[in-house]
C-alpha cells in the first residue's frame, strides 16, 4: 500500500515557480532590446501557461507546449533558452509525453553543460529523477537524484540538495533499504531545520515514521508521526496533511495491534469535514483501513458495508492499487466466515489485477492469501509466492547494491579527486620549488658568468694593452732597424765610396795628360764631373741621414697606420696634426688609451657618420695632452643609444687617465670629440 503522503508534484510546482521568477529576474538585457525580449519571453510563457492550464483539454495543452518549444528554438539568449527548455521539459513530464520530455530534457541538460550552468544541470537531473521514479526505474531515478544532489551541493543550494536527499530516501524506502533511507532523511532534516522549512520537515518526519513502521519499530514510528503532526502546526497550507498523518499513525497502531488507538486515529481523520471532496482517495483509504482494523479487532459491525463502500469509490476512481487492497480485505473477510468461493474469487481477482499493473507487493499478498484459501492449488500458489518473493528480494538487493555503488563510486570519485588535488598541490608546490631552485641556479650561473666575463674583460684589457705595448716596441724596433740600416748605407756611401771616388779623382787629376788642348779640357771636365758625382753621393748620404729626423715618432706612426687602414673602409680622408706634443715624454698608458679611443672613434665614424674628412690633432696645452677627433659626418643626437657603448668606453678610458672628455655633435655637420689628459709629471719632476 502506498503511503507516501506528499506527491512530488507539489514540490516541483513550487520549484518551477521559483525557477520562473528567477529567469524573469535573471534576464536583464540592454534597454534597446528589452521590449522585444519581453515580448518573446511572454509569447513563450503564454504557451507554457496554456500547457499548464488544467481546464484546457489534454491535446490542447500538448499543442501549446509544442508551440512553446518551437518558439523557444528561436531564442538567441542561451540562458533564457535554457531556463525555458527546463520548464518545457517539466511540462512534458507533467503531460506524460515521455518522448517529448526525454528529448527536451536532454537538450536542456546539454545546453546547461555547455553554459556551465550547474543549477540547470542539477535541475535536469531532478526532472530525470522524477521521470524514472514515475516509471519505477529506481536505480536510474536514484542516480539522477544523486547527480542533482551533488550539483546543488556544488553550488551550495542546500534547500534543493535537501529535497534531493528526501527524494532519494523515498526511493530507498521503496526498495526496503530502510536503514539507508533513515540516514538520508536525517541528513535532509538537519538541512531543513537550519533553513526552517517546516513543510519539508513535516514530510521528512512523516517518511521517517513510515520507515520505522516498516522496520517494525512502532514506538519510534509513532513518535515521528506525532512529531510530524506537531510540525504541521507551523505549516500554513495544511491541506489534508493532518488526515494523511492520522491515517499513517492509525496504520502504525494497527500493525502494533493497538486497534483501539488505530480506530481513534482513523475516526479523527474521518472527522474532517469535506474530506470526501478534498481527497476522496484518502477518504476511501481511511474507510478501508478503519474497516480492516475493526475486522482485525473482531468487530464486524458495518465492516463488509465499509469495504464495499471503499471498493466502490476506488473502482470509480480507477485506483487499482486501492481496488486490490479492498479485494484482498474482502477475501480475508469471507475466508473468516467460511465463504470460501467468494474469498477465492476476490483473492483471485486481486491477484490478476496486481499482475496486470505489475504491483509485486500486491501479487505477493494475493498469492499468500490464495495459497491459504485454495487448498487444492495451495502448493502451486505457495511456490509462485516463494519464487516471486525470492526474485523480488534479489532484485531489491541488487538495486540496494546499486545505490551503494552509486554513492560509493561517487565517494571514490570524491576521494580520487581529493587525492588528485592533493597530488596537484604537491606537484604545484614541487614545481614551484623546482622553479625557484632553477631560477636561483640560473641567477647564480648568470652572476658567475658575469663575474667571469668581467674578469675576462679585465684580462682582455690587460692583454690588449700588452699587445699594444708589443706593437709599440715592435714598431720602434722596426723603425730603429730601418734607421740603422739607413745610417749604415749612408756611412758606407760617405766614408767608403766617397773616399774612393775622391782618391780616384785626384789621382786622375795628377795624371799628366799628354795630348791636345781638347783632350786636356775633356780630362778636366771628367774629373770635375767626378767631383759632382761625389757631391751627389754626399747629398744622398745626408738625405739618408736626415730621414732620421723626418721620420715621425713611433706613436704618431702607429696612429697613422691605423688611420690608413681604417680610412679605406668608408673612404674618408684623414689628417693627423701633431702640435707640440712631445710623445717621448708621454707615458705608454696615455698612448695606449689614446690609441684605443681613436680606434673607437674611427669605428663609429666608419659605422655611422658617413664622414668624408677626419682630423686628428694632438696638442700639448700646459701640462695636458689634448686629443681632438673631428669629422664632418652626419653627427648624432646626444643621448642616442647607438653610440652608447663606444662613448661609454671612451669616457671610462679618459676617466682612468683623470682626464676630461667632451663630445659635441651637430646633425649633418659632424662630431668633435675633445679629450684633455694631464701628463703625468714624473719626468719633469725628476729633472727639476
Amino acid at each position: 500500500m502506498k503511503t507516501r503522503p506528499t506527491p512530488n508534484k507539489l514540490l516541483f510546482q513550487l520549484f518551477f515557480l521559483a525557477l520562473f521568477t528567477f529567469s524573469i529576474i535573471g534576464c536583464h538585457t540592454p534597454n534597446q532590446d528589452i521590449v522585444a525580449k519581453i515580448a518573446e519571453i511572454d509569447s513563450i510563457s503564454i504557451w507554457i501557461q496554456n500547457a499548464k492550464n488544467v481546464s484546457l483539454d489534454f491535446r490542447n495543452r500538448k499543442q501549446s507546449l509544442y508551440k512553446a518549444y518551437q518558439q523557444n528554438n528561436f531564442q538567441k539568449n542561451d540562458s533564457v533558452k535554457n531556463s525555458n527548455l527546463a520548464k518545457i521539459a517539466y511540462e512534458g513530464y507533467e503531460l506524460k509525453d515521455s518522448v517529448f520530455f526525454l528529448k527536451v530534457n536532454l537538450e536542456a541538460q546539454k545546453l546547461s553543460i555547455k553554459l556551465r550552468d550547474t543549477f540547470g544541470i542539477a535541475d535536469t537531473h531532478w526532472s530525470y529523477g522524477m521521470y524514472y521514479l514515475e516509471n519505477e526505474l529506481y536505480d536510474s531515478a536514484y542516480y539522477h537524484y544523486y547527480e542533482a544532489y551533488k550539483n546543488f551541493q556544488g553550488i551550495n543550494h542546500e534547500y534543493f540538495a535537501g529535497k534531493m536527499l528526501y527524494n532519494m530516501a523515498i526511493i530507498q524506502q521503496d526498495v526496503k533499504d530502510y536503514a539507508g533511507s533513515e540516514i538520508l532523511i536525517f541528513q535532509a532534516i538537519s538541512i531543513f531545520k537550519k533553513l526552517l522549512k517546516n513543510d519539508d520537515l513535516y514530510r521528512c518526519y512523516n517518511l521517517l515514521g513510515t520507515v520505522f513502521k516498516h522496520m517494525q519499530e512502532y514506538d519510534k514510528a509513532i513518535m515521528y508521526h506525532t512529531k510530524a503532526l506537531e510540525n504541521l502546526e507551523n505549516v500554513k497550507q495544511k491541506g489534508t496533511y493532518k488526515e494523511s498523518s492520522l491515517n499513517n499513525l492509525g496504520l502504525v497502531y494497527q500493525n502494533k495491534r493497538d486497534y483501539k488507538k488505530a480506530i481513534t486515529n482513523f475516526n479523527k481523520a474521518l472527522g474532517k469535514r469535506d474530506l470526501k471532496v478534498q481527497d476522496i482517495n484518502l477518504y476511501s483509504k481511511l474507510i478501508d483501513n478503519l474497516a480492516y482494523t475493526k475486522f482485525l479487532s473482531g468487530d464486524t459491525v458495518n465492516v463488509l458495508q465499509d469495504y464495499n463502500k471503499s471498493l466502490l469509490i476506488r473502482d470509480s476512481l480507477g485506483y487499482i492499487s486501492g481496488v486490490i487492497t479492498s479485494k484482498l480485505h474482502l477475501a480475508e473477510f469471507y475466508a473468516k466466515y467460511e465463504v470460501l468461493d467468494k474469498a477465492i474469487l476476490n483473492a483471485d481477482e486481486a491477484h490478476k489485477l496486481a499482475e496486470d499493473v505489475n504491483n509485486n507487493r500486491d501479487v505477493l499478498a494475493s498469492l499468500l492469501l490464495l495459497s491459504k484459501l485454495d487448498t487444492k492449488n495451495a502448493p502451486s500458489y505457495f511456490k509462485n509466492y516463494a519464487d516471486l518473493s525470492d526474485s523480488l528480494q534479489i532484485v531489491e538487493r541488487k538495486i540496494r547494491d546499486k545505490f551503494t555503488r552509486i554513492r560509493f563510486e561517487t565517494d571514490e570519485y570524491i576521494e580520487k579527486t581529493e587525492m588528485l588535488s592533493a597530488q596537484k598541490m604537491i606537484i604545484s608546490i614541487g614545481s614551484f620549488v623546482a622553479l625557484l631552485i632553477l631560477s636561483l641556479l640560473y641567477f647564480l650561473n648568470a652572476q658567475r658568468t658575469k663575474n667571469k666575463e668581467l674578469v675576462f674583460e679585465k684580462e682582455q684589457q690587460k692583454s690588449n694593452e700588452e699587445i699594444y705595448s708589443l706593437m709599440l716596441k715592435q714598431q720602434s724596433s722596426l723603425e730603429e732597424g730601418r734607421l740603422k740600416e739607413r745610417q749604415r748605407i749612408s756611412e758606407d756611401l760617405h766614408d767608403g765610396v766617397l773616399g774612393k771616388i775622391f782618391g780616384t779623382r785626384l789621382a786622375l787629376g795628377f795624371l799628366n795628360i799628354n795630348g791636345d788642348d781638347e783632350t786636356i779640357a775633356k780630362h778636366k771636365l771628367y774629373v770635375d764631373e767626378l767631383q759632382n758625382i761625389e757631391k751627389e753621393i754626399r747629398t744622398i748620404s745626408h738625405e739618408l741621414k736626415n730621414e732620421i729626423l723626418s721620420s715621425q715618432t713611433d706613436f704618431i706612426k702607429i696612429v697613422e697606420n691605423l688611420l690608413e687602414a681604417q680610412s679605406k673602409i668608408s673612404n674618408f680622408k684623414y689628417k693627423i696634426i701633431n702640435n707640440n706634443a712631445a710623445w717621448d715624454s708621454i707615458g705608454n698608458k696615455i698612448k695606449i688609451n689614446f690609441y684605443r679611443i681613436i680606434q673607437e672613434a674611427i669605428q663609429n665614424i666608419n659605422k655611422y657618420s658617413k664622414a668624408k674628412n677626419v682630423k686628428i690633432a694632438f696638442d700639448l696645452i700646459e701640462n695636458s695632452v689634448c686629443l681632438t677627433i673631428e669629422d664632418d659626418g652626419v653627427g648624432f643626437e646626444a643621448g642616442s643609444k647607438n653610440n652608447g657603448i663606444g662613448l661609454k668606453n671612451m669616457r671610462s678610458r679618459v676617466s682612468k687617465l683623470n682626464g676630461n672628455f667632451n663630445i659635441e655633435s651637430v646633425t649633418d655637420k659632424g662630431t668633435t670629440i675633445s679629450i684633455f689628459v694631464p701628463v703625468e709629471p714624473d719626468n719633469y719632476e725628476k729633472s727639476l
Partner: protein
Amino acid sequence: MKKVYKVLLIDDHPIILEVYKMAIKKASLSIENAAFKIETAENSDIALQKIAIASKSDGFDIIFLDIKLPPSSDGEILSGEDIGVEINQLLPNAKIIISTTFNDNYRVQNILKNVNPDGFLIKNDIDTDELVEAIKTVIFDPPYYSKSVIKLLRKQISSDYLLDKIDRQLLHELSIGTKMKDLPDVLPMSIAGIERRKRQLKEMFNVEDCEDRELILKAKEMGFI
C-alpha cells in the same frame, strides 16, 4: 841645403795615399830646396807604431790624417781624431792635415777643438790644385781650411748661441736617433740632467713645447751639428 820634410800619410785607401804622394811631389816642384821623406800607414795600428817610433827620433813634420779609420786592434783608437790627439801629445811640432769626407758640423767642430789641425780638408771640397796649395800653405803659413770648414766657422761666429761640448754632443746624439734611455751611456749625465739640458737647449733655440725633432732641425740650421 835642402830641407827634408818628413811626412806620414795615414789613410786606409791605398789610392788616396797615392794621391797624397802625387800632390806632395807636385808641391815639391814649386818649393825650393825641399825634399820630402814620405811614410805611409794604412791603419791606426801602423800609424801609432810609426808615430811612437818617430817620437823617439826626429818625429814628423807633416802628418796627413784620415778621420775615418778602422779601429785599432786594442780598441783604444776609434778614429783619426784619437790619433790626432795622440800626435799632439807625442809630436807637438808635427803639422797635422786632417783630410776627411766628414762634413757634419759637430764632428768638424770637435776635431777642430780636440786636434787643432794646421790643415783641415774636406775631401770633396778640393781638387788637385787645392791639395797642392794646402800642402804649401800648411808648410809656410798654416792653417789651411777648406771651404766647408771656413763656412762652418763663419756661421758659428755669427751666431749668439753658446753651446758647450755636452750640448753639442747631446744634439748630435739626438740627431742620429739615439734613444733617451741610451743617452746616459754616451753622455756623462743622468737622464734627468739630460732632460734639463735638452729643455734649456729648446728654450735657447726658441722651440719650447716641441718635439726633439724641431730642436735638431734648428740646431742643424744654426750649424751646431
